[in-house]
């Protein structure tokens, strides 16, 4: 069991007072980010990423930096549940499904039960996903070491195709949003030829569009604009966590083991393929409702309706890091931001990380175990504190978040131009949200654009310009084939539905 030895090595890296301190700070910041409207996993991590620039330059600093950032992410995952249950306001898109049963429970005075169930199932989901990562990631990485540029591009193609195949909205809006991201990524200095692209003489555009700036604007400012428009009114339920409620809920939870396992599987699957935490939580809730014996009490405060989405959301959110560290392809916008962090610190995400940066990779994986344990303890003990944050009026929270976004944007490159861009991206985020243009494809395209382009160009160079290289062996051809199927899935689905509708009509009556 080579993995276990490596993992123990990872624990020894993480278990220093400094790293544990960062872990706790990260989780606290993360929960606060998750609780505050307008700040979420992706833009919260984006804003705090510049904090790690100095840290990452010290020896072993990149491990400390990723521990801080990934713990912010776990904290944000936990935090989303608090607002959903107590205030019926999902702090994060993936906790929307938690409001369906969590808030009714809170209204019945069972807030402590709902919160305990949510936190515990989040913990279980995350833990299962980390175990999957521990044993699957080295295998995937070893396999991916054989990848050339063509295979890498094929995997990237598959990632983007799956957004279209598995997206809920209009495939053409997804496609438009995605290609806008690619176009923005191309702006600036072309790394291969050294030519300037699409700068049209503006020196501010030389460095191109920073995806961190885009994330802060799209998700942060955009969200605040949406909230200000609809006028937020908090109507909170009381949050007191009694110790015996925690224990009695824990005694109840094992009853829902089937739901738990099912949700873990859905979550891990949706996290590794870039389906993401949000659809995973909805799918898991829907399945639990259909399969549960008490399906009709869903939506009225059934604890199983809290367990299902929370387990899946956390499993997905955590396993989204698997493709990020093994292939350099993030499974969610927040994983994309973490990936951007790796690039800024000078690490090259991908299978080589497991060979060249063992301490980093296994330190990260070990911190996932510890971070989730620490997270569970912190959220269970500090709920009243976090609920108090939500009682701060929105007219104080909103300008604070605006200031945070401005600071976050400035510190990315020490450029005022980026602060203006954040405002612009905020408007784009607001409009896209209202017209249901999906934002994650845009962000992922912006992060992966340069990488996808360079693997494409390298592949083409080695084949002397023939697209046949993407079908030259079973591996690359298989991945591309899967990608093409996913790309046309909305169309295939329609044709299948048409055929099925025709069939009964054609049958003898």
């Amino acid at each position: 069991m080579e993995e276990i030895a490596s993992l123990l090595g990872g624990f020894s890296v993480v278990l220093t007072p400094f790293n544990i301190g960062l872990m706790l700070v990260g989780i606290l910041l993360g929960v606060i980010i998750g609780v505050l409207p307008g700040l979420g996993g992706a833009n919260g991590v984006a804003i705090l990423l510049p904090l790690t620039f100095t840290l990452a330059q010290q020896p072993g600093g990149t491990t400390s930096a990723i521990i801080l950032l990934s713990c912010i992410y776990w904290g944000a995952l936990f935090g989303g549940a608090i607002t959903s249950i107590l205030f019926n306001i999902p702090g994060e898109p993936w906790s929307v499904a938690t409001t369906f049963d969590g808030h009714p429970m809170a209204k019945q005075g069972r807030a402590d039960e709902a919160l305990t169930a949510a936190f515990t199932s989040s913990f279980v989901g995350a833990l299962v996903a980390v175990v999957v990562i521990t044993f699957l990631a080295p295998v995937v990485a070893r396999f991916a070491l054989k990848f050339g540029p063509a295979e890498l591009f094929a995997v990237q193609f598959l990632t983007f195709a799956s957004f279209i195949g598995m997206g809920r909205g209009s495939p053409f809006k997804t496609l438009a949003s995605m290609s806008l991201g690619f176009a923005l990524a191309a702006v600036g200095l072309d790394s291969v030829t050294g030519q300037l692209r699409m700068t049209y003489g503006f020196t501010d555009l030389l460095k191109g569009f920073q995806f961190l700036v885009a994330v802060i604007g799209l998700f942060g400012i955009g969200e605040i604009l949406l909230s200000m428009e609809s006028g937020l009114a908090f109507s909170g339920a009381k949050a007191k966590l009694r110790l015996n409620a925690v224990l009695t809920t824990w005694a109840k939870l094992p009853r829902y083991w089937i739901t738990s396992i099912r949700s873990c599987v859905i979550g891990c699957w949706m996290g590794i393929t870039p389906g993401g935490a949000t659809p995973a939580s909805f799918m898991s809730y829907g399945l639990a409702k259909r399969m549960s014996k008490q399906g009709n009490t869903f939506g009225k405060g059934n604890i199983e309706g809290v367990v299902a989405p929370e387990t899946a959301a956390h499993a997905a959110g955590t396993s989204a890091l698997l493709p990020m560290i093994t292939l350099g392809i993030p499974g969610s916008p927040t994983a994309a931001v973490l990936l951007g962090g790796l690039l800024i610190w000078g690490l090259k995400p991908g299978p080589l990380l497991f060979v060249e940066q063992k301490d980093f990779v296994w330190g990260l994986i070990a911190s996932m175990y510890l971070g989730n344990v620490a997270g569970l303890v912190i959220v269970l003990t500090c709920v009243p504190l976090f609920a108090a944050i939500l009682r701060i009026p929105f007219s104080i929270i909103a300008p604070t978040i605006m200031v945070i976004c401005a600071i976050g944007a400035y510190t990315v490159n020490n450029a005022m131009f980026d602060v203006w861009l954040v405002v612009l991206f905020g408007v784009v985020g607001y409009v896209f949200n209202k017209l249901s243009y999906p934002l994650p494809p845009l962000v992922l395209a912006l992060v992966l654009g340069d990488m996808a382009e360079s693997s494409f160009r390298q592949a083409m160079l080695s084949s002397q310009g023939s697209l046949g290289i993407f079908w030259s062996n079973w591996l690359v051809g298989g991945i591309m084939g899967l990608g093409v199927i996913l790309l046309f899935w909305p169309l295939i689905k329609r044709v299948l539905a048409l055929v099925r509708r025709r069939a009964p009509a054609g049958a003898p009556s």
Partner: protein
Amino acid sequence: MSDGEGPGGPPLISVRTMDIVVALLMIAAAAVVIGDSLRLGMGWQENEGPRAGYFPFYVGVILAVSSAVNLVRAVLDRNGAGKTFTTKPALLQVLAVLIPLAIYVGAVAVIGIYVASIAYMALFMWHFGKYPLWRGFLVGFAVSAVFFLMFEIWFLVPLPKGPLDEPLVPVVSAFMKSIGL
């Protein structure tokens, strides 16, 4: 959340109109991308592989085609015409946030981030929350002090300071040292 109904009032802009506007803007963006790609060359370069404009050219084409489909769909869509994108009071509310935000960012560039943030927070709280100005200034000062501590002292990341911030910085850092932060 995504289709949040604004405060009441007659619809000002329909979803359909906005869909058409956005699709047209995207097509314009695609034209910008394709235009520059053609300047860079989108063909094959000996020993270098695809030219710099190759990849962006096709991205631009995909953007143009998908936006064109969105445009046609929006034009044909009778449903979207009935759905409200925004009402007049909702638009005014958004502008009431957006315009001061732009002024704030402009102010950061001129006078530095700390004083600008304090003023922005105070005025925001005064306008939207009906707080007295002194409380707004107090909260703004406290929030800025926390950021000062986190960025400049703990994580050594400098923020933009202007003529009004400079005299404040030594005072604040001396105070923080004296209370042991």
